[in-house]
């Protein structure tokens, strides 16, 4: 009895201390939406230093890039009066900022903030993870990042609202690039502010930071002075939780949405009467492909790569393994990206011909290959299936598992023989896909595809402004990559899935995590 009493006392005391600090919400009309997600890589809100999903999804509520992208992929001026004017030579872009755009602290956005944001990303002492692409695009950016210049010569501030950006060479995907969320504009003070990203985070977006507990929770509240007009919801909350916990919290009605990555779980919800209408599909621009190391045997032989590519039964993978929740790939470019070839025939699954090809390549007894994956990869089940299925074509595959950091390291060092590449574009430009296999980029995915013709055509694609011609260039590049040289074997185009509460209306998540547009029906 004494023990039971002690236990009850202890639990009561904990309830009391657990409850401290919790405030009962004063419910206004707008309401709150809570998103359950993994925040273990969300220690800092500054997306200049991360590529993790959750910080980006939060930043999309609070900050904005100069150019926005609608759910259908069309670009529109977001912080600008109109889309920038391009000079004849395609090198200089003239921008005019929308007037009266306020940051969350009340200060007005001006051209100086834009320049300062770029310079913050390229600060030699604290280089952004996204710095690489800027240094190759904008004139003077590389010199600044190397500490050889005091400012980026290619960005010129004319007055508070007008500025120009000059490129190293003409680039047709530059505006797409500016619409990526890591190109969000911060106030100029961000570069020197104490606690920026951990205690302070200011943007021009529709929601402003209220509370941030690293790796645990972020609360954002409506910014009433938003230049696009105040939004409906009062607040948006991100709460850290693992996938399993998030599903339980959703079923218990404690959170309003969560992403579901496991195909088996998605299909079990789709078969569940109570929750099937809660599953929302978000179309993605991405490709899952088997990527080879062309410096390693036997992948140095194009016939071997072709054999592997045609030994993949893409239909079975999509229909049986993914339960139809993806699209079989016939090219590296997914549908919706310029250069995608609607009329191209599907890859033909042909294990017999694969055997024949291996024989021709000098492997009459087939090949032994090794694929590498990570302990957290959502695509490992594809490899496990392939390891079995490849036996049909005399391909004996073993799978090695590393932790994510170890995997990234050996991949970056070119030591991976073969792995499943997941490439989802946040920009949606064909160059974002095809440049992955350019020199020297391809070495960072342990691929080492080197083709000077390919690289030259890729350059042409960047400067070509005629859409039809540009599309044709990328169509050819894709064909060369996946049907002539077989540098990689595209498998399928994935989609993202979320469990969303039925009370949330107006949610379009394509190209941007637009929680800010959500409304509650009750």
């Amino acid at each position, binding site marked *: 009895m004494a023990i039971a009493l*002690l236990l009850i006392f202890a639990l009561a005391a904990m309830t009391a201390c*657990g409850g401290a600090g919790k405030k009962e919400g004063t419910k206004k009309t707008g309401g709150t939406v809570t998103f359950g997600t993994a925040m273990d890589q969300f*220690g800092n809100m500054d997306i200049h230093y991360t590529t993790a999903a959750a910080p980006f999804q939060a930043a999309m509520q609070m900050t904005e890039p100069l150019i926005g992208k609608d759910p259908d992929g069309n670009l529109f001026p977001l912080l600008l009066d109109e889309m920038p004017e391009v000079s004849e030579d395609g090198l200089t872009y003239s921008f005019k900022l929308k007037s009266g755009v306020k940051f969350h602290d009340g200060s007005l956005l001006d051209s100086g903030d834009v320049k300062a944001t770029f310079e913050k990303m390229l600060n030699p002492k604290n280089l952004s993870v996204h710095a690489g692409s800027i240094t190759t695009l904008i004139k003077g950016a590389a010199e600044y990042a190397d500490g050889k210049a005091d400012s980026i010569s290619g960005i010129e501030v004319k007055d508070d609202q007008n500025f120009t950006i000059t490129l190293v060479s003409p680039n047709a995907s530059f505006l797409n690039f500016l619409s990526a969320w890591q190109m969000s504009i911060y106030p100029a003070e961000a570069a020197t502010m104490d606690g920026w990203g951990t205690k302070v985070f200011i943007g021009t977006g529709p929601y402003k930071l209220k509370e941030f507990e690293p790796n645990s929770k972020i609360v954002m509240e409506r910014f009433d002075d938003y230049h696009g007009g105040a939004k409906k919801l009062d607040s948006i909350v991100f*709460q850290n939780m693992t996938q399993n916990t998030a599903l339980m919290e959703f079923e218990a009605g404690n959170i309003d949405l969560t992403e579901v990555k496991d195909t088996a779980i998605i299909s079990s919800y789709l078969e569940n009467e109570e929750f099937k209408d809660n599953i929302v599909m978000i179309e993605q621009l991405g490709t899952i492909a088997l990527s080879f190391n062309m410096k390693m045997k036997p992948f140095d032989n194009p016939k071997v790569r072709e054999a592997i590519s045609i030994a993949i039964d893409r239909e079975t993978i999509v229909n049986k393994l993914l339960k139809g929740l993806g699209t079989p790939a016939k090219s590296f470019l997914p549908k919706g990206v310029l250069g995608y070839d609607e009329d191209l025939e599907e890859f033909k699954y042909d294990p017999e011909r694969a055997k024949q090809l291996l024989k021709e390549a000098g492997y009459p007894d087939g090949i032994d290959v090794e694929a590498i994956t990570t302990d957290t990869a959502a695509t490992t089940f594809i490899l496990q299936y392939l390891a079995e299925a490849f036996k049909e074509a005399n391909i004996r595959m073993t799978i090695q598992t590393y932790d994510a950091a170890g995997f*990234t*390291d050996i991949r970056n060092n070119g030591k991976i023989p073969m792995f499943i590449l997941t490439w989802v574009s946040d920009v949606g430009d064909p160059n974002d896909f095809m440049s992955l296999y350019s020199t020297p980029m391809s070495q960072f995915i342990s691929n080492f595809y080197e083709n000077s013709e390919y690289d030259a055509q890729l350059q042409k694609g960047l400067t070509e402004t005629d859409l039809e011609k540009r599309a044709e260039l990328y169509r050819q590049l894709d064909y060369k990559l996946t049907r002539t040289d077989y540098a990689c074997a595209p498998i399928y185009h994935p989609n993202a899935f979320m469990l969303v509460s039925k009370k949330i209306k107006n949610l379009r998540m394509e190209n941007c995590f637009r929680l800010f547009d959500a409304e509650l029906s009750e």
Partner: protein
Amino acid sequence: MMIKYIISRIMQSIIVLIGVTLVTFILVNVVPGDAVSLMLAKRTDQATMDRIRHELGFDRPYTEQYLRFLGNAVRGDFGNSYFEKTPVTEMILRGLKYTVRIALWALLLALALGLGAGIVSAYFHNSLLDRVIMFFSTLGISAPVFWLALLFQIFFGLKLKVLPISGVDKPGSFILPVLTLGITNAASIARISRTSLLEIISQDYIRTAKAKGAGELRVVFKHVLKNAAIPIVTFAGLVVRGLLGGSMLVETVFSIPGFGSLMVSSILTRDIPLMQGCVVYGATIFVLINLLVDLAYSALDPRVRLVKET
């Protein structure tokens, strides 16, 4: 005498800690996963990576890197986390706030429940009650922490909806994590205390006390418990260490931003300063607990320190 013993134990602890820093340093430099290329996600050229490596001092000789790390560690300075850009010590203290709170409550629960069950079991030795308690304690020991955690989440959170499933800021958030950790450890304590109590109960001096007419409760609390304390204290020390280890699992399942989950994510992201800080702080806590347990022995049983001194 006592002071001399304490000083010698502290000196031993310091040597252990230096060993820990050395092992940590070596491991960090051996595991695959270069921090600089992870930090920059390899989106930059070799020259920039080399420059950053130089700024972080990664191009210096290992001995120099180690001594600098050791010197800073002594001052509690592990630098800033690569990703959060916050001082490591600040992050660790933030995590410990939750972990210590859960561990303390779980320890209290484990001791109360375990000792209580152990005493009852020993006292009603070989009765049906004893068997029932031992059955449940075997079950408790065998249940993996994360499995128990999931069961509790499903039962109390999802089905009954009486307690929060996860998080730290709802009323009662700490109950399920504490129950999970407390119950598994209570089961072990119950078994240990039952065994050592039984051993003492059969001693001559207990029979003498009973023969002299001392009441049952007085015998149990004054004579039996006091003499059975040493193995129980030893085990309680083990439990505290187990609680810190178990907190990694429990914190992940219940989404608690504690020391355990911080350590796990520092390893997964190769956040070297944070990883080193976590290991050194964790080791210090372990060593301190060991020290306290040893000192508790000598307070409980003077023979311990006398033996050491001869």
